[in-house]
């Protein structure tokens, strides 16, 4: 590289140093200690154990339980919940009157902007036995139950829908705004009903936004910790313990940093796969 391009690359240095030391560094370290038996106490004696941690994980019922719950949490709250509700809201907003649109948008976005822990407390209050949901069900003479005990994974999934739908709504509002009016109007004149227009015209036209949105929602949901921690601590027992909470428990409550990190590495790998797919979706734009 000649001197001029070196001088030009100079401003990137501070960012590069930070990224290498505090992001790439920990990831590399993660890939190393996942293969050791590092524990919280007596760190000097950790030794290389190869794939032992991974073998343990795939035979550990608690781990498999966490994988299953992470899958349920991601599919229910992100793929189905946030994505569909966000699209429905964006589509309805195009027809609704302005005050209703502003009001609904404001409420949904407020839920998104709130700090994670605050959102956790609000939904904890909502789902508790003596909370709002049961009060509402009583009012309608429907059977109430202790949601955080009977259906903890669904309660935290709904919490994630509450908190995360705004993002999909914003992405889809932008995407629908870019569809030329003439196309939908032409279809309407030809007699295509609302559902058919949605299915045959709108959805194919916004498929790139759908892909991007699904990707980002999934990645976001895979790493949710605070929301579940505040609502259930992963319990009762381990019935809402997704992978991030399992990783934390193994590393700190059971002092098995090596094992916890192996789980982290798996999570990181899943994230990387999604991330690569996401990059391919954006391929033409870089």
């Amino acid at each position: 590289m000649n001197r001029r391009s070196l001088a030009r690359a100079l401003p990137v240095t501070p960012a590069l140093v930070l990224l290498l030391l505090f992001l790439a560094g920990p990831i590399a370290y993660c890939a190393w200690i996942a293969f050791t038996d590092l524990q919280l106490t007596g760190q000097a004696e950790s030794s290389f154990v190869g794939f032992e941690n991974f073998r343990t994980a795939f035979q550990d019922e608690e781990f498999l339980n966490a994988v299953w719950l992470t899958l349920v949490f991601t599919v229910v709250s992100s793929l189905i919940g946030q994505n569909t509700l966000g699209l429905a809201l964006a589509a309805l907003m195009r027809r609704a009157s302005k005050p209703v649109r502003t009001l609904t948008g404001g409420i949904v976005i407020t839920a998104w902007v709130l700090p994670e822990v605050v959102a956790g407390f609000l939904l904890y209050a909502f789902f508790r036995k003596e909370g709002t949901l049961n009060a509402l069900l009583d009012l309608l003479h429907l059977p109430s139950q202790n949601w955080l005990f009977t259906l903890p994974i669904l309660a935290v999934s709904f919490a994630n829908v509450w908190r995360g739908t705004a993002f999909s709504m914003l992405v889809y509002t932008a995407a629908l705004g870019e569809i030329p009016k003439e196309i939908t109007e032409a279809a309407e004149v030809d007699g295509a009903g609302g559902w058919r227009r949605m299915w045959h015209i709108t959805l194919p036209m916004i498929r790139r936004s759908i892909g991007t949105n699904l990707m980002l929602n999934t990645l976001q949901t895979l790493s949710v910790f605070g929301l579940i921690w505040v609502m259930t601590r992963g319990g009762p027992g381990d019935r809402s313990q997704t992978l991030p909470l399992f990783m934390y428990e193994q590393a700190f409550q059971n002092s098995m940093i090596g094992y916890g990190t192996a789980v982290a590495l798996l999570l990181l790998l899943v994230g990387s796969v999604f991330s690569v797919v996401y990059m391919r979706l954006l391929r033409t734009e870089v």
Partner: protein
Amino acid sequence: MAATHFADRRRNRRLAADAGLLAVAAAFVLPLAWVVLSALDPHADLRVKAPDGVTLENFDAILTSDITFTPLLNSLILCGGATLLTVVCAALAAYPLSRFSSRLNRPFLLSILFATSLPITAIMVPVYALFVQVDLIDTLQGTILFFAASQLPFAIWLMKNFMDGVPKELEEAAWTDGAGSLQSLTRIVLPLMGPGVAVVTVFSFVMMWGNFFVPFMLLLTPDQMPASVSINEFFGNRGMVAYGQLAAFSIVYSTPVILLYVLIARRLGGGFALGGAVKG
């Protein structure tokens, strides 16, 4: 005939859409209503109900240095410091990426894009282990550095996209007058992309202000805890939870980020920059 028929249909559709949206809004507003009503209620519990008389005593009770001011100040130092670092580094890094072509731009940008979507939660355990080894655990500066690094990929990506929107011709005059890169960045490019810089700043700050896991892992001393972690104290070992006070604290803690969001959303006509940015 046909015209009124169309108008009727349009009106009916609008009413249906309004009804649908209002139903969703009603479901979404319940948890928010709880926090507002309980904060004003002297006998708050866990369900949404009209307060038994409106009072500010919950706010009075929490506005002490132990409960509110110290944690908020800690949050401000932590998130303010990390945001400043993020924005400065991102602006510097985005400049050559946006202005000069180089064979390294594409791989760098692809790595950044890849890092943007990594689940940062996953690396908190190794970060903890690493911070113990290099003695950065339980330090504000260590936490600030990690916060900044974790936010940087997205900040650089966003900043570069905004910077691409500033025409290069405007700088060329300055270059012929002998201005260096740094001067044209600070005097010409950044002022012209003011709203873009504001978006990156506010977005980074809001993300960090609400983040729980990072300070929860990296800080141990109670006096250093930011509000996102100290809020757990309401559920500590004191037995009874004062729900009214918890609600009041939640409001005090959330207000700054909501105001900041409103500020940038207005400036960008509906807050679409982020939606646009993630689209590429």
